[in-house]
């Protein structure tokens, strides 16, 4: 049996002050090489789950196991964040540097790369996403679709082994959406996509995981309706 890349074991999580837990003894696995969709109604805890994986939230009980190693301390999560990239739902939350190049190079710099190396990686990632020529554009003034692609570049520049995408298509027009599908198809790493858009998932993943508060049911995706 192959070892899962990401595993959540018997996780219980309640937001401070909330009446009931989002997850109760929740289990989840992402196997190597898999492209998985994550679906579920609003408030079912999809975003919460991604934040638990990244260590932005900590479970009250249960284990987060990444690449076979249990992580629980901030120190360990720092390591996790080098290898797992998260694309936030809102691109505005992800971009804070004045220019695109600075923003894309921010991650590599934090990983200890020299400025020259970081700029090199940033340029390469942007080339890969078809963003050449954007280096000196002001991130704040990009259009919604451009912001989304640049956010993706900032995450990919960290050369993650796993990519988590939180509703990557909200507010995007059809053209940008198609471009995103092409980019995701070309990626060689495992990824997990949260999305309410069935059509987008059909193009990008083979299986969908339905999130409930205690478990997560994986079903193959079927055209015309998420299997269930």
């Amino acid at each position, binding site marked *: 049996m192959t070892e899962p890349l990401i595993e959540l074991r018997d996780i219980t999580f309640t937001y401070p002050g909330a009446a009931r837990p989002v997850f109760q003894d929740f289990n989840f696995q992402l196997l190597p090489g898999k492209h998985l969709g994550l679906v579920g109604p609003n408030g079912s805890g999809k975003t919460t789950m991604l934040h638990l994986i990244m260590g932005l939230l900590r479970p009250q009980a249960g284990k987060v196991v990444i690449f076979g190693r249990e992580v629980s301390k901030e120190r360990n999560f720092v390591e996790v964040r080098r290898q797992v990239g998260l694309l936030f739902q809102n691109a505005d939350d992800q971009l804070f540097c*004045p*220019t695109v190049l600075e923003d894309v190079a921010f991650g590599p710099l934090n990983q200890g790369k020299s400025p020259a190396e970081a700029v090199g990686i940033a340029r390469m990632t942007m080339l890969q996403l078809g963003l050449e020529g954007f280096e000196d554009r*002001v991130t*704040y*003034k990009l259009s919604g679709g451009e912001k989304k692609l640049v956010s993706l570049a900032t995450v990919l520049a960290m050369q993650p082994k796993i990519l988590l995408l939180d509703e990557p298509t909200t507010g995007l027009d059809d053209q940008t959406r198609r471009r995103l599908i092409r980019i995701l198809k070309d990626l060689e790493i495992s990824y997990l996509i949260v999305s309410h858009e069935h059509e987008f998932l059909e193009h990008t993943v083979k299986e969908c995981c339905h999130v409930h508060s205690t478990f997560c049911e994986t079903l193959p995706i079927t055209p015309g309706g998420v299997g269930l």
Partner: protein
Amino acid sequence: MHISEGVLSPAVLAGGAGLAVLGTAMGLKKMDYEAIPRVAILSAAFFVASLIHVPVGPVGLHLVLNGLMGLLLGWAAVPAILIALFLQALLFQFGGLTVLGANTVIMALPAVVCFYLFRPLLRRPNPASAIGAFACGFTAILLSGLLVAAFLMGTGQAFVKVAQLAVLAHIPVMFIEGVITLFIFLFLKKVRPEMLEGIYA
């Protein structure tokens, strides 16, 4: 730095309150009703930005940014700072009602001074304006430190040593604020130069 309640003498408290009232009145006069949402929203952002802790060696310092506030808001920075300090007293119990005036003067007087001193510099081309931005952050904290010392010394001879130490404690903050103000300035210049034109002078 905040001065706590109960430290300053009544005369100094009254002096601080008087100055703060004058400055606030001036700021409110220069601000018409339509400006209220703009000044308020910007000062809410300043309030949140000042929650950022930057590490300096083993300790963390929180940002102050009163120089930048002066640059962007001019006289309107006085009521904005008064409100921010009032909210800090309410939400975190930092400072209090009787020292509100003195604390406002400590933060806002440097803001207004920086507005007059450095605003003209920022319009110049890059080396001059960048130096101006650094100097603005630096000077604002320097003046704040000196004002803290002045208020303490005004309270009594007993505070001379405290005042000296307070000024010393401001020295690292001066450099940090200078650097941070410089980077914020460069960011604004690139991303939203209109903001540097001053909203309400």
